[in-house]
C-alpha cells in the first residue's frame, strides 16, 4: 500500500531515480527509454551532485505492482536491464553511484530533499570508486558423484526371501558408508580451499572484494557446483592484470573460472563498515 503523504504529486506522478553523478553528460543517457514510455530521462541537481531521474506514473510503481513484477522473471529482467542500461550510460560519461532498482520518490522536491541528506555518503562512494571498476568472478568445481565402490546401491531383496544377512555384512555396510561420507567431506573441503585460493589471488589485485550469495544448483550447469561467487573493485590501471591472473588460476586449479566486467561498481557504493 503506497503511503500517500501530503507531498504526493497532484498529477499522480512519482520520480524514479537511477543514479547519482558529479556532472553527467545529458547526451549519454537522453535517448534511453528508462523504465517507462513517453517520459524523457533528465537531470535533477541537488547541492553539488546530480541525479539521473525519470518521471513515472505513480500507479505503475506501487508496492503491489512491484511485487507482481518481482515474481515475473521476464518483467524483472526487463526492468533490471533498463535500470542497468541507464546506469551504465551515465558511468561511461562520468563517475557514478548507481542506486538500487526501484528507488522512487513522490516528486522532485521530495527526491531532492532525501538525496541532499545523503550527499556525504554519495561523495564518499564517488571517491572510493573513482577510477575503479567492478569485476565479477564465479568459480565452479566439477561435481563428481561419489561413486559407490564395489556393489551398486544395494538392490532391495524380495521381502519373502529376506533371511538373516551374513555376519560381517553389517561391518562391510558401515565401512562403505564411512567411505562415502569421508569422500563427500573431502570434496567439500577441496571446494572451500579452491574458493579461498581464487579469492585470495583476486584480493591481492583488488582494492576491495565482496562475496555474493552462491547461485542455487538449478542455475548452475549440470555436473558443476558453484564454489565462489565474488565481485572485486579493481583500479582501472590494474584491470589488464586480470586476464593473466585468471588464466594462471585456471591452469593451477583446473577449475572453471568465469570473469565478467568491467562493471559499474554497484557492489562497492554501500556503507564502508
Amino acid at each position, binding site marked *: 500500500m503506497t503511503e500517500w503523504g501530503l507531498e504526493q504529486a497532484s498529477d499522480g506522478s512519482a520520480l524514479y531515480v537511477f543514479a547519482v553523478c558529479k556532472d553527467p553528460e545529458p547526451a549519454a543517457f537522453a535517448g534511453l527509454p528508462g523504465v517507462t514510455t513517453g517520459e524523457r530521462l533528465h537531470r535533477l541537481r541537488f547541492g553539488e551532485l546530480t541525479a539521473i531521474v525519470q518521471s513515472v506514473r505513480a500507479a505503475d510503481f506501487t508496492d503491489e505492482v512491484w511485487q507482481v513484477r518481482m515474481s515475473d522473471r521476464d518483467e524483472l529482467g526487463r526492468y533490471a*536491464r533498463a535500470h542497468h542500461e541507464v546506469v551504465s550510460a551515465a558511468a561511461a560519461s562520468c563517475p557514478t553511484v548507481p542506486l538500487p532498482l526501484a528507488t*522512487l520518490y513522490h516528486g522532485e522536491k521530495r527526491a531532492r530533499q532525501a538525496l541532499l541528506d545523503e550527499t556525504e555518503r554519495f561523495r564518499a562512494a564517488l571517491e572510493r570508486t573513482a577510477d575503479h571498476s567492478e569485476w565479477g568472478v564465479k568459480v565452479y568445481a566439477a561435481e563428481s558423484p561419489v561413486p559407490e565402490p564395489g556393489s551398486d546401491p544395494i538392490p532391495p531383496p524380495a521381502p519373502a526371501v529376506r533371511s538373516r544377512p551374513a555376519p560381517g555384512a553389517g561391518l562391510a555396510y558401515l565401512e562403505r558408508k564411512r567411505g562415502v561420507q569421508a569422500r563427500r567431506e573431502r570434496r567439500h573441503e577441496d571446494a572451500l580451499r579452491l574458493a579461498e585460493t581464487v579469492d585470495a589471488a583476486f584480493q591481492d589485485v583488488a582494492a576491495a572484494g565482496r562475496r555474493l*550469495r552462491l547461485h542455487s544448483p538449478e542455475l548452475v550447469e549440470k555436473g558443476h557446483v558453484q564454489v565462489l561467487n565474488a565481485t572485486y573493485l579493481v583500479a582501472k590501471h590494474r584491470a589488464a592484470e*586480470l*586476464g593473466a591472473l585468471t588464466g594462471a588460476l585456471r591452469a593451477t586449479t583446473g577449475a572453471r573460472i568465469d570473469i565478467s566486467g568491467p562493471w*559499474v561498481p554497484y557492489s562497492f557504493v554501500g556503507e564502508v563498515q
Partner: protein
Amino acid sequence: MTDLDLGRDAYPVPGPQNTNLADILERVLDKGIVIAGDIKIDLLDIELLTIRLRLFVASVDTAKKAGIDWWETDPALSSRAARNSLQDENRELRERLEALESKTDEASDRR
C-alpha cells in the same frame, strides 16, 4: 558469457543486452547505498502468528563454563550424579546404623 578480452579500452561498459541476467540482478538488487525510497517493497508481512522465542543455545563446554550443568547434577539424568547420590545415601545409612549400634551397646552396658 562474453569472455574476458582485454583488447577493448579499459573503461568500456558491457552493453546490458549481452550480459547475463543473473550478473545484473545480483548488482541492481544489491543494497547499494542505503537511502530510503518512499515506497517500501514489502515481501513478507505475516502479522497473524508471532512466536516469541527466548532460547539459550550453547555447546556443552560453553554451558559448563557458564555454570550450567543440570544434566550432570540431576540424579535422574546422569549416571555419575546417580552414583554420587547413591554413595551419599549409603553413607547416611551407615552413620545411622552406627548410631543405632552405639545406643544398643550403651543399653547393654547399663543392664
